[in-house]
């Protein structure tokens, strides 16, 4: 299992994003289905489009630093996804990448801190907090659990499931009021996929 001092390179981060893309593609219909219950039925398509573009970007502009990989991936999400999830997931990765700078190897602790910075930026950009039934409900506990990748994946998944009984206060689902209760938040489900992919490549 990963420890505080394990070092990660650009290839590791790229592998994470590639695994994320695979997961998103495999689960796109489920994500759209979740979004159709309490949103506008585009989330699976949005994520698939974005992560397919991320994989292409990383192939076209190979990066040497983990930070560079995240920055490029974040910029690509912002430029290709649209909707709420594009700027939010894009900002998550961009800010994390910025925090890591140009170092060619980073420790798991540094990665945790960088992703924490990214998640904070998401909270600030979207104005949401824990319990608002958004991607943050998966992201915040997951980052807390890092650098234990397995625990982080579990925490994200649990956080996503925990959105089910919540009433949404942000995003499209908030328009439903009480009727948003009883459904899993699609963005949280996506976040859980990303953390699951991170665990997978860390093994």
């Amino acid at each position, binding site marked *: 299992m990963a420890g505080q001092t394990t070092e990660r390179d650009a290839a590791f981060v790229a592998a994470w994003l590639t695994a994320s893309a695979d997961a998103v593609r495999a689960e796109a219909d489920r994500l*759209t*289905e979740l979004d*159709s219950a*309490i*949103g*506008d*039925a*585009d989330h*699976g*398509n*949005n994520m698939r*489009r974005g992560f397919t573009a991320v994989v292409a970007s990383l192939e076209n502009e190979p990066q040497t630093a983990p930070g560079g990989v995240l920055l490029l991936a974040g910029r690509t999400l*912002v*430029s*290709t*996804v*649209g*909707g*709420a*999830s*594009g*700027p*939010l997931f894009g900002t998550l990765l961009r800010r994390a990448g910025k925090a890591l700078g140009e170092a060619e190897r980073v420790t798991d602790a540094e990665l945790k801190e960088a992703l924490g910075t990214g998640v904070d930026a998401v909270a600030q*950009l*979207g104005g949401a907090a824990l319990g608002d039934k958004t991607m943050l409900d998966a992201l915040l506990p997951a980052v807390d659990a890092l650098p234990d990748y397995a625990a982080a994946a579990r925490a994200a998944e649990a956080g996503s499931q925990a959105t089910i009984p919540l009433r*949404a*206060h*942000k*995003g*499209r689902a*908030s*328009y*439903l*009021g009480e*009727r948003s209760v009883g459904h899993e938040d699609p963005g949280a489900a996506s976040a859980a996929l990303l953390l699951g992919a991170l665990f997978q490549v860390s093994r």
Partner: protein
Amino acid sequence: MKMLINGAERVVADALRGMAAAHPELRVDVDQRLVVRADAPVEGKVGLVSGGGSGHEPLHAGFVGYGMLDAACCGEIFTSPVPDQMTRAAAAVHGGAGVLLIVKNYTGDVLNFDMAAELVEDEGIEVAKVVVQDDVAVSDSTFTAGRRGTGGTLFVEKLAGAAAQEGAPLAVVADVARRAAEGSRSFGVALHGPTTPAKGSPTFDLPPDQLELGIGIHGEPGRERRSVLGAAEIADLTVEALLADYGPGPTGPLLCLTNGMGGTPLLELYGFHAEVVRALGARGITPARSLVGDYVTSLDMAGCSVSLCQVDDELLRLWDAPVSTPGLRRGR
């Protein structure tokens, strides 16, 4: 669900190819999903840029032209466009007098336009922004993403577009847009949910004896379900919801848009408009101007929305000013 398409992933690009073929007066960038007035940038004129997810046609691309928008950024279906489109659009329409961004209030749209606004300002282009949030069905705005931007967007785009066409400076055009946005109220009702090409079935299922009140334009369900009502009753509760929201009641002339969501025949829509005007009349109000048709749609959703806009004499004059776009045309 059968559709007249070549495949879900091609719908938006194909539609833009069709717009390009049908409208030589527009410049259509299919790859970038931009629709721009062919004569842009107009020297000295404020450039109006709007956009949003596709599926609401004619909004926004169909409102590009003389007296209305200079450019529209088309997102995927029901998905806000990305900042790159907006910055390109701003650059294409900036005629030296700055750019106004007209944004419907959805998290995605606001975030993407905000990112774009920063980038455009960095390029040294003066930018103003107005957010349309006219949907009275979203009541407790503090616990939600705030009121949605829906049918009132047409008022904002038309009125600000007319001001810009007359050569008003950015501050004035933005002020007109803000007054139009603040004066607008909308409320929508669905009889049948819309079907997105990606999903292939209605985004919400309405039993045959139910209708959905307070719907948005993105296939999101509304706030409440009710047993089916007649047009007169729907008009009454719609008008009541709208007027209640004006508080002491609208002062000054009212514009009224009786809008079809896409799947409701124009015949029904005109009948519904009669009931809306009756319901307004019962409350002592006669709209100064009426517009009836499919203007701010949600794919094939059956249903309607009513948008009112409280104006003053100046805004009324701007409403009557000539406009020439694929979706709205008058006096030119």
